[in-house]
C-alpha cells in the first residue's frame, strides 16, 4: 500500500516537472532536435537539472542497505553495448524526432486536452506490443531488473 502511494507521489512530481519544463509541448522538443533551424537548447537544461539531482541522490540512496519501503533495489543489470541497444535507441530517436514526444510527455499530456496525446499513446502501445510479439514470446516479462526503463 505505502509503495503504491510512493509511486503515485513520484509520478505526480514527475508529471508536474514535465509540464513545468514544457517538455509536454512537442514543439519544444523538436526545437531542440532541430539543430539546422532555430535551435532551442531548453531540453539540454531539463536533462542537466534532472541528471544533476539524480546524480547526487543516486549516490546517497544506494549507499543504504535497502530502499525505505521495499526489500531491495531493483537496478538494471545489463552492461554490454549490443545490437538491440543501438538499433532500439536509433529507432526510438527516429520516432521521437517525427512525433516530438517520448513516452513520459506523451502519457503526461493525456490530461491536457490535446488530441495528440491519445493518438501518440495508442501508437506507443502498438509499438511496444509489436516488439513483444516479435521478440519476447519465448521469454516472459522479467520486469524492470533487466532494462533501464
Amino acid at each position, binding site marked *: 500500500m505505502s509503495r503504491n502511494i510512493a509511486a503515485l507521489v513520484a*509520478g505526480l512530481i514527475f508529471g508536474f516537472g514535465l509540464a513545468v*519544463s514544457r517538455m509536454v509541448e512537442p514543439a519544444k522538443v523538436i526545437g531542440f532536435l532541430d539543430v539546422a533551424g532555430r535551435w532551442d537548447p531548453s531540453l539540454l537544461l531539463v536533462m542537466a537539472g534532472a541528471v544533476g539531482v539524480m546524480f547526487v541522490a543516486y549516490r546517497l540512496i544506494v549507499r543504504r542497505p535497502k530502499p525505505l519501503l521495499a526489500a531491495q533495489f531493483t537496478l538494471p543489470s545489463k552492461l554490454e553495448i549490443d545490437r538491440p541497444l543501438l538499433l532500439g*535507441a536509433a529507432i526510438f530517436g527516429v520516432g521521437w524526432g517525427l512525433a516530438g514526444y517520448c*513516452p513520459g510527455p506523451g502519457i*503526461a499530456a493525456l490530461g491536457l486536452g*490535446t488530441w*495528440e496525446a491519445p493518438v501518440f499513446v495508442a501508437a506507443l502501445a502498438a509499438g511496444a506490443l509489436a516488439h513483444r510479439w516479435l521478440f519476447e514470446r519465448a521469454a516472459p516479462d522479467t520486469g524492470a531488473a533487466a532494462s533501464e526503463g
Partner: protein
Amino acid sequence: MEHFTPVSALVGGALIGLAAAVLLWLNGRIAGISSIFSGMFAAPSADTVWRALFLLGLIVGASLYVALNPAGYTPRAGFSPGLLALGGFLVGFGTRMGGGCTSGHGVCGVARLSVRSITATVVFVLAGMVTVYVARHLLGVQP
C-alpha cells in the same frame, strides 16, 4: 511562445530528477517510463498497481501544473495524425528493443554513469536530430 526557456527547463528538470530519486529511495525502482508503461500490458503481477499509479500521477501532475498556470502550456496545432502515429509506434518499438527511453536511459542511466545508457542517449538524440533535419528541412513534411 518564447523560444529558449532556461529557468523553467532547469526547475522542471530538477523536479524530474527529484521524482526519480523518490521512486528509488522509497521503492528501489528506476523511473523508466517506457518500461513502466509496457509493464501495463504484461500479465498482472505485484508491480501492476504501482505502475498504474505512477502513470496516473504523471497525467494528474501535468494537469495540475497546467490548471495552476494555463499560460504555461501551448498545445501544437495542425500536426499530421499519420506522422504522430508513425512516430509513436517507432518510439514504442524502439524503447522496448533498446531497453529504455529518455527517463530510464537519459536521466536515470546517465546519472548512474551507465555506459549502456550514455551510449543509448547519444544514439537516440543524434537519430532524433537527423530525423528532424530530414523531415523538416529536406522533405518538408514536418511543420
